[in-house]
């Protein structure tokens, strides 16, 4: 019993009073040490809110680091592969960072609040790595995960909801930020998200979490606003073709098997790399890989039929094993069975790729061998994602 006494409950986020009240099914899952809602009641309604109305997702478990100091920019240029010098204050970019071997440690969004102040939001914890990488730089690094309450407001009516909440975001372009006052606290609104739809992320201090929730819900009452869980978000992010650490790739420092780590080339994110900015972590290995070629490719697949291909293996000509599915679903928006997959090069260019699916039908498994065609990502991308000012919905 002493063991049980010592055991720690999952943490709850600053929105817990509201999310727990709304969670009709009590469906929670662990996420970075927090209790995160998987679904509030009906995953289809939640997904529909993302695509047709407005959805609210609790982002608090995302790990957040604040970097401040005169060398913050130079430091982040050393740490991450993208060019931070090009990121203007008030802007956000998606980036990733690598170990010495050029294998991906994690990806995340980097918010530049000022010339010497950044916030990085990511999936996994990296403080020891980040502190070691800071040797020789005048930069202060803090894990501010618990200080910040963050909500993702996504969907066609999200701009309208914000307007009704009192904040005009009509001029806010994608990957830009706006700072407003909320109850005496600073509220940052960034036009970012993980759904591939029109949407915003709201960042404020933890003690303003509940008023912010209530304020948004009231403002969006007539615009179909509803809280969503991870299940619905996961479906939307797959539509958008976004990757998740520990789902679509394993962070290099967590891989037990040496061959499991992946480079940016191997997960289709080499476009982030700035080869001209000077030295950065992993550059030497990545230069060599650029010359020698990579082992894996990340591809988007359009699979025949309507059975999700999650956890399946890919074959060349139905025979030779050449890869595996990392994420898959039937997409209600794309009206296709879509998947992200890792394929060994050079088979990523083959048109003869098949997926073996074990489909359960009334408790009985049937083995399917289905054609998988490569398709462009995002699988689904509405124009409203980028249109500025947003259309009125």
């Amino acid at each position, binding site marked *: 019993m002493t063991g049980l006494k010592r055991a720690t409950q999952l943490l709850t986020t600053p929105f817990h009073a509201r999310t727990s009240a709304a969670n009709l099914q009590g469906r929670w899952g662990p996420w970075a040490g927090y209790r995160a809602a998987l679904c509030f009641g009906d995953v289809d309604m939640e997904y529909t809110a993302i695509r047709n109305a407005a959805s609210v997702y609790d982002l608090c478990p995302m790990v957040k680091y604040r970097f401040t100091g005169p060398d913050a920019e*130079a430091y982040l240029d*050393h*740490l991450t592969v993208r060019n931070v010098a090009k990121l203007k204050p008030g802007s956000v970019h998606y980036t990733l960072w690598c*170990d*010495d*071997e050029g294998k991906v440690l994690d990806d995340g969004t980097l918010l530049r609040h000022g010339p010497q102040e950044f916030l990085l939001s990511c999936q996994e914890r990296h403080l020891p*790595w980040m502190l*070691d*990488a800071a*040797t*020789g*730089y005048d930069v202060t690094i803090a894990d501010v995960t618990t200080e910040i309450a963050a909500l993702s407001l996504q969907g066609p009516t999200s701009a309208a909801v914000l307007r009704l909440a009192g904040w005009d975001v009509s001029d806010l372009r994608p990957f830009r930020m706006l700072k407003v006052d909320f109850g005496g606290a600073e509220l940052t609104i960034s036009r970012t998200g993980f759904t591939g739809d029109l949407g915003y992320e709201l960042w404020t201090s933890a003690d303003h979490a509940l008023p912010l929730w209530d304020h948004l819900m009231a403002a969006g009452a007539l615009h179909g606003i509803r809280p969503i869980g991870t299940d619905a978000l996961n479906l939307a992010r797959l539509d958008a073709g976004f990757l998740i650490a520990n789902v679509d790739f394993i962070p290099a420092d967590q891989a037990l098997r040496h061959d499991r780590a992946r480079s940016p080339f191997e997960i289709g994110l080499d476009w982030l790399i700035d080869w001209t900015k000077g*030295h950065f*972590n*992993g*550059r*030497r290995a990545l*230069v060599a890989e650029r010359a020698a070629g990579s082992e894996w490719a990340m591809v988007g697949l359009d699979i025949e039929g309507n059975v999700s291909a999650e956890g399946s293996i890919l074959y060349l000509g139905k025979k030779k094993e050449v890869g595996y599915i990392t994420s898959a679903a039937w997409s209600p928006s794309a009206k296709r069975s879509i998947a992200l997959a890792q394929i060994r090069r050079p088979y990523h260019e083959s048109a003869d790729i098949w997926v073996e699916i074990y489909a359960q039908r009334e408790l009985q498994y049937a083995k399917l061998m289905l054609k998988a065609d490569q398709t462009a990502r995002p699988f689904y991308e509405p124009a409203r994602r980028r249109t500025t000012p947003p259309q009125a919905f």
Partner: protein
Amino acid sequence: MLTRSSEVIVIGGGVNGLAAATRLAREGARVTLLETAAQTGGAMAARGAAGDMPLAHLTPGLDPRVAKGMALETRGLRFHAPLRDTALDLGGDHRTVAGGLASGADAAAWATLHQRLMRFASVLAPFRAMAPPRLKGGGNDWGALMRHGLGLRAIGAREFRELLRMVLINAADVAEDELNDPLLQGLMAHDATQGAWLGPRSPNSLILYLNRLAMGAQMRLPVGGMGSVAKAMTEAATAAGVTIRLGARVAQIETLEGRVTGVVLDDGARLLADHVVSAISPKATFLDLIGPRGLETGLLRATRDIRARGATARLTLRLNAAPNFRGADLQSRMVIAPSVNAVEEAWNPVKYGEVPKRPVMEIVIPTATEPELAPDGGHVLSALVQCAPHDPAKPKAAKTAMLKATMRVLEDYAPGLGEMVSATHFLMPWEIEAEYGLSNWHHAELSVEQMLFNRPNHATAQYATPIAGLWLGSAGSHPGGGITGAAGWNAAGAIIRGKAV
């Protein structure tokens, strides 16, 4: 690739820097050797700090490849006959060891043990003359590995099993299992741990003894002192075409696009190079000369984690007469380590940054062999004293206490010695680091987890580094230090083979 027009800079003019520079120059490269001090030789050069003596006072003998390749004999380098060892006894009943034979009641046991350990050492010795093998990444000399591997098996199944049993054992266990004479046990315990940062009962201490035997079972004194080695090697380097620049301190190694481009000296002068061989501490090379901003975070971590603590203090006494160590042969290498526990007890306090009550030590009196080395007719006593704390809370007090304890032990063994002293030079580990750049006697502690493919760490173990054109060739690289030149010679070999360039 190394070509005839390659510009090579070697940083550090110690035994390994001189060996590497000469070998590369003989290949036709244009080599410039940069030495901070006013003379070459590093630990082999007397430069005041250690009094009349250089930091290193003995050599197991240079690596035969270095001696031959640099034609050191032709240049007049001679050695006195290999030194006998004397395990000093407080009562004057000393033991002597020479040629694998010991005096006293334990002579037979010593001979048996010595033969076995020498057999082990002899099959391990060839690995010292090659880049350490590694599982991944290529670059292995498979032919040599096969040969040396077969050599290991050729000692027979029973002996091979014994080697595997003993190779990671501690020296104290072996000494106590195989010997009865406390003086001989103490001698072995001392020799296994000299220059290391561990005690005879620490795990893996025997392999250090095997490594020592692989270099040479008996220590040598060069004719004219250690400076003769430095002189002959410097002549060889110059003759091979190496440009030697003294008083040249490198402030920075410059890189571009992950490749070395040259160095900047502390006076601002910029020297271009295709290759830079660092024959100084690997930690200083990466952390100070490349700097953290030029390093990958993993390499930075691995470099910072190289353990390089020194537990050896350096004592030089100028004496106005010959000391009397209760009748011991003053021309021998005298060791004060009366038992295994005496060594272990000298080691224990160092773990906590404290000074041992009775340090153990190796004593050489070069002037007994070569009286003309004495500056004013008297004698010079040179001692490496174990174990000194490398980072005590109060350095000044620790130094005073360490010197006092050392002199007390010396006085016990050689009554009246204190009154003969006309000058004392005593360096604690941190002073050795400041003067010679050696935080540990071997730049990186010699210990099993920092040997072979982990010396100085996994990323830089085969002399090549992740930075193209930057090579390591100091005692911090395989096979470690000991005034043999092996690491520098091996590093040059790696460059010549053009690996990883």
